[in-house]
């Protein structure tokens, strides 16, 4: 993320309040006429302190706190956490519960990708595609609401299993919805690959080579659109992905169009997996009892969120509360690619390049810590911070 100090540069600020992104993030684009010459990113406007908050809550309560890390990929956060905690406690979760979790994960992926399709179309000024993709997204939202009881925070998981079961009637509604969505998805794939007005906004824009994607550590569909073969569902199967596998969706073009194609194609994988799960749903228990306390141990948990690899680190200390939970969200890995891709493109392409990585701002729950100049310690007293602030602004004024 390069920094431009020259005052004579014309800088377009986008965010933290801007109609392009209804979410807090600050982007500064240095422009020469319409051509962007440099970009900087500032994140962390949404620091909520969730990681710290987990340390004062029990394992059970944390499930619901962590589900609220993100409103779009809520279930995957809860699932990653559950998988980690169950591994810490040495629990084996019944196969039916794992399959139902996978079912909700894939339904959530459909909702997330369709939401993204609409947002990206809106950034391109194609509001009709936006409206239609969101209209059809209601189908999967209704399915999720009917299945779990809520549109956004499904709360399908409990530690040791799931709360919800899938009955014959649910199966029928889900299959009907998936059939409808599959038909519509074919249409949207047609739109994003053949509509000339739309394609000329996406084809050849923000081309990211495989090397660049790997250099910046891009994850998920953003990386797969550049030909990086990385999908946790395939690399390290969790839940029931061994029994109900998905195929990796790759594109080597690396441009915005490829990202559209990869995400839309992934929808077909999700439909196929949902059908497979509903066809051969293992019988058995929904949940096993979870111990309240977990002996001292540590583990990691990796899952494939709609935006890419989601990583949890969990450490227990023998009580009913965790010692430390660390979350690495996918968007934070992808943001680094934006300044690298921005230079040389037009200002009009910027919202699309940003949207191309499917940025989730709840993922950017980050804080900047400042090391004390004197002794490199991170502890600051109120008085020290005050003095630091005063001298900082004095320095700046001079």
């Amino acid at each position, binding site marked *: 993320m390069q920094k431009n100090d020259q005052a004579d540069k014309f800088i377009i600020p986008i965010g933290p309040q801007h109609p392009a992104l209804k979410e807090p993030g600050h982007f500064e684009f240095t422009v020469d006429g319409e051509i962007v010459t440099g970009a900087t990113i500032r994140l962390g406007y949404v620091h909520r302190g969730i990681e710290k908050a987990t340390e004062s809550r*029990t394992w*059970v309560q944390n499930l619901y706190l962590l589900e609220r890390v993100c409103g779009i990929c809520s279930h995957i956060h809860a699932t990653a956490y559950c998988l980690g905690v169950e591994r810490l406690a040495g629990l084996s979760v019944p196969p039916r519960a794992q399959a139902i979790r996978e079912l909700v994960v894939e339904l959530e992926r459909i909702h997330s990708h369709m939401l993204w399709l609409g947002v990206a179309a809106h950034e391109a000024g194609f509001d009709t595609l936006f409206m239609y993709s969101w*209209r059809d997204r*209601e189908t999967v939202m209704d399915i999720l609401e009917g299945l779990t009881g809520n549109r956004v925070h499904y709360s399908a998981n409990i530690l040791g299993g799931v709360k919800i079961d899938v009955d014959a009637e649910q199966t029928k509604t889900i299959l009907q919805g998936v059939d409808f969505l599959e038909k519509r998805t074919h249409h949207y794939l047609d739109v994003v690959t053949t*509509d*000339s007005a*739309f394609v000329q906004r996406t084809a050849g824009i923000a081309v990211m080579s495989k090397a660049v994607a790997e250099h910046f550590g891009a994850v998920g569909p953003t990386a797969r659109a550049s030909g990086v073969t990385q999908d946790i569902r395939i690399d390290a199967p969790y839940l029931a992905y061994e029994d109900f596998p998905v195929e990796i969706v790759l594109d080597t073009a690396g441009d915005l169009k490829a990202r559209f194609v990869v995400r839309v194609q992934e929808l077909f994988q999700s439909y196929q997996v949902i059908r497979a799960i509903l066809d051969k749903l293992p019988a058995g228990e929904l949940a096993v009892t979870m111990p309240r306390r977990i002996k001292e141990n540590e583990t990691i948990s990796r899952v494939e969120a709609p935006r890419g690899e989601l990583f949890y680190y969990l450490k227990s200390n023998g009580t009913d509360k965790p010692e430390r939970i660390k979350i690495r969200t996918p968007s934070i890995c992808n943001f680094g690619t934006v300044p690298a891709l921005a230079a040389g493109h037009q200002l009009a392409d910027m919202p699309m390049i940003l949207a191309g990585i499917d940025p989730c701002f709840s993922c950017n729950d980050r804080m900047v810590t400042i090391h004390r100049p004197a002794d490199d310690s991170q502890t600051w007293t109120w008085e020290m911070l005050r003095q630091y602030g005063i001298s900082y602004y004095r320095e700046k004024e001079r």
Partner: protein
Amino acid sequence: MKIGVMISDIMRSLFRRPVTEKYPFERRAAPQRLRGHLIWNQEKCSGCGMCSKDCPAQAIELITLDKANKRFVLRYHIDRCAFCAQCVQSCRFKCLQMSNNDWELAALKKEPFTISYGREEDIAALVGKLIPADAVTPEKA
């Protein structure tokens, strides 16, 4: 390359009713599993307090007046509730459930957001002590 790929969509929509739901003028039935407002069935409650212990939002207060005679008051704070239904799972006696039709919970005042479940005389006993006098909206369990 084609021009105007979505033309079939827009032409069809022109002669079709908009899909926008005219809420609140037209309402759809809520799904069977919807997690709405919490309901407490006092008869089965043993007063173990797991519901309030597991609640991630401190939305449940279980006040024990007399454990032997099963005199409990459950104060439910809707404004804190995250509607996660963990309490329903934690309850071993299945005395908690979430309503699937009572979900329009907006109110102009703060008082309706706290509900005291329990016998009327028990709630009355608590008024002025644990419960502020102006915050009582007794409800039949």
